């Protein structure tokens, strides 16, 4: 298809992306946009340096390749390069969303869905509402000088509502969202909407400040997922180990890094916002145990990091779009189920907190989760709502303080936001887990 020049490794990634965005503010239509973009990202490697370019004119890909070859220097042994030799040569067509493609759903149906649900979200304490319908269908193609020839698709759609409540001098904003792979799965029941409003009203009317300190904490599945993603997922991205031999020794597989009941997995095979059947280097998705029973068992790789650490590819080289090169990123990261019920997790807690959902999270040496809705736990029972700005803790200490894992694992998808790493934001990822209990976290 393309004329790949000898003496170089080259590949071409093409994304044909269809997306819809509908936005309402206080019930009024503010945006109604359907976007179709077809772009290509072209890479050339000469064994010493990579050369990249992108184009929104896919008919000019060959010209782009030729321009990059002019920058690079031919290497007759390029096929024996440890990075190049790792690249897979998959030939596959994996189209799984075409029969339920969001492109085929009339725009009016999308507008009706988001508007009708919006109209049902009412509260005398809610002063401002924004509503969004978002979808995306991407058809990917990948070709390499080693012979890879792959075509696959990705789809996500969802509705998201942001509500601002006020009472006295307090204000709060909360989001309700649902992301799925098929449009037909996006409905909310009246009961779900009523429960959401009731919970928000209870919070704005009754939430009390907390006394900052260290407490036992139970995290809801969505918060467990954020914790896994932020606290350990990013540390599993192997590019931060490049060039640092001491670091590689520090992170030897087999090292104990968490409590015995903690297992964290990472996989691109789950259909949802972290579905990545092939990564942006043409590597097939794998199932990677990052931590198994508290022991470091794996990490995430691109071909360059796998070659540097002499490990296997994991299918985690990803870019947010055809404007960027792939770097090591997560797909779907989650904590595996344990054997406790929610009631068993909270039962031994005399005084602690239940974190129901979150606004945002981040993680370096210290992780931070900013909760939205949170509740006090008193004498083993969930009590009233509390205002918590952030939960924080040292990552490695906290991984060792997980002393209860629920039996209710959920894998969750998202239609707004995403993962950020350096210049590339937002990347669609999935995350999840069960309820977990941490014996001690800093609550502010």
């Amino acid at each position, binding site marked *: 298809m393309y004329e790949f020049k000898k003496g170089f490794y080259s590949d071409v990634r093409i994304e044909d992306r269809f997306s819809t965005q509908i936005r309402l503010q206080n019930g009024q239509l503010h945006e109604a946009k359907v976007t179709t973009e077809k*772009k290509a990202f072209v890479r050339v490697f000469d064994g010493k340096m*990579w050369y990249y370019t992108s184009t929104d004119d896919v008919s000019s890909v060959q010209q782009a390749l030729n321009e990059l070859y002019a920058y690079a220097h031919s290497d007759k042994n390029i096929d024996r390069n440890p990075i190049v030799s790792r690249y897979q040569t998959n030939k596959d067509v994996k189209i799984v969303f075409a029969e339920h493609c969001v492109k085929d759903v009339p725009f009016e149906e999308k507008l009706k869905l988001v508007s009708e649900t919006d109209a049902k979200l009412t509260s005398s304490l809610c002063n401002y509402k924004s509503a969004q319908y978002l979808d995306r269908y991407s058809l990917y193609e990948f070709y390499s000088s080693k012979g890879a020839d792959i075509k696959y698709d990705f789809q996500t759609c969802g509705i998201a509502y942001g509500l601002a409540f006020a009472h006295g001098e307090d*204000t709060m904003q909360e989001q309700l969202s649902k992301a799925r792979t098929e449009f037909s799965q996006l409905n909310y029941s009246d009961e779900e909407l009523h429960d959401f409003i009731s919970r928000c009203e209870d919070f704005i009317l009754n939430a009390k400040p907390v006394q*900052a300190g260290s407490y036992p904490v139970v995290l809801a599945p969505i918060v467990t997922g954020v914790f896994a993603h932020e606290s350990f997922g990013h540390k599993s991205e192997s590019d931060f180990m490049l060039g640092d031999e001491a670091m590689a020794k520090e992170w030897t597989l087999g090292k104990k890094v968490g409590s015995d009941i903690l297992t964290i997995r990472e996989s691109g095979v789950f259909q949802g916002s972290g579905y990545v059947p092939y990564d942006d280097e043409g590597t097939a998705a794998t199932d990677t145990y990052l931590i198994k029973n508290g022991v470091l068992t794996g990490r995430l790789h691109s071909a360059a990091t796998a070659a540097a650490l002499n490990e296997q590819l994991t299918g985690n080289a990803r870019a947010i779009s055809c404007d*960027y090169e792939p770097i090591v990123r997560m797909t779907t990261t989650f904590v595996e189920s344990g054997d406790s019920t929610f009631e068993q997790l909270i039962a031994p807690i005399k005084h602690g907190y239940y974190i129901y959902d979150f606004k945002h999270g981040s993680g370096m040496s*210290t*992780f931070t989760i900013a909760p939205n809705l949170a509740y006090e736990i008193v004498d083993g029972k969930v009590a009233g709502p509390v205002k918590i700005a952030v939960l924080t803790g040292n990552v490695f200490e906290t991984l060792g303080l997980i002393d209860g894992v629920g039996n209710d694992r959920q894998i969750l998808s998202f239609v707004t936001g995403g993962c950020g790493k350096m*210049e590339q934001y937002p990347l669609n990822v999935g995350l999840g887990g069960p309820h977990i209990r941490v014996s001690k976290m800093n609550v502010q």
Partner: protein
Amino acid sequence: MKTEKLVSKKSNRCLNVVANQVESLRINNSKQNTFRIYDNGFIGVDGSLGEADWEQLEQSAKAKLAQGIDYPETHSKQRVLTVDATKHIFDEKDFIPAVQYLLDRLGAENPQFLFSNKVQLNSSEDSYENSDGERYLYRGNQFLLSLAIKLKGSPNIMDEGYGAESLDFDEDAICRDVKLICDAFLNKLPHVEEDEVTVIGGGEPLQYAIQHLIADLYFNNASLFADELGQKLFNDKLSITINRNPAEQINLPFFDAEGVVNEGYVNYLVKNGVLERLLTCKKSAAQYDTPNLGCAGAAYNGVPNVGAEGLDVQNTATDLCELVKGKAVFVSDTGGGDMTPSGDISMPVMTAYLFENGKLLGRLPEFVISANIFQLLGDDFVGVTDSGLFKFGKQKHFVYKAKIVNKA
């Protein structure tokens, strides 16, 4: 009826740096085109990538008027203005060798650290024109440095960061700044004894206030600052602007996404502590009958919306030492703080240094900044300066007093 055409051309040369080595060169050139039409109180928009077919875009935008998206049709006087703010930074052939030389020098001068991430040369050309005869053209460029600094053997993804944008490449200044940070990082100090300190930061607390100054939230009683428009709300010394002055900003058009050019390129959100305006686009300004701040943003094929490009805090001092008498805590890296519904802020600090007499003396253990937004921007606000510590680029220092808790 009114029509608008916008074109945005971007050129980017981006070097990825891995452990002190230039690993890749990325070459991106893009062009985005926008056509908007306003008629009978509605807006229609369409856009494209690459070379524009304006007739087709106009037809498509006209057809989208039928979507019924309300938007005010505002008119303006004929005006033509071109600003070329570009400066010569590198010949393209010199870019990679110069950056690699810089990295070699940083590595040699700071042998216990590894330097990674991006070094970029960007240029842009943005134009706006409408059927009233307004025609604006801006050209700009920048050298953008964003280094992730890692102590060799550290279990962290990165331990420090250094970044700046500039219209020149001053290798000596960069090396001096980075060495200042690296030397201080290696000198571990115990916690300061005080529980209330002077903090020198990058303006992180402002982000919590800004979202409450969006007109849509403010006028729907969902803002912490409800009913305070026109009132003294913050410290006398605090002035927050939308600043698109080409003499002060780098690679930022002097007009917003709706072609609004503020007088002197500056408009006040907060002036001397008084809440003067709110973050608006033309639509929200008209909807709430409030003056427009001129800070609209827009996707190339989307309806304009409120943005915050050019948000700036005016300097209150010409040097950091004017603001900080004695000791202070210099906050370099915070991790995901937030604010409660009552305005209480908690901000975990991962990297901070003790600052005294214009110098970074050493690295402090981790702690959490605890403050209230009203107090922090009120009595506890000390001032702002972009001069005093770093020599390369313009890096703003936001100084305030706060409690520090959770000393590790």
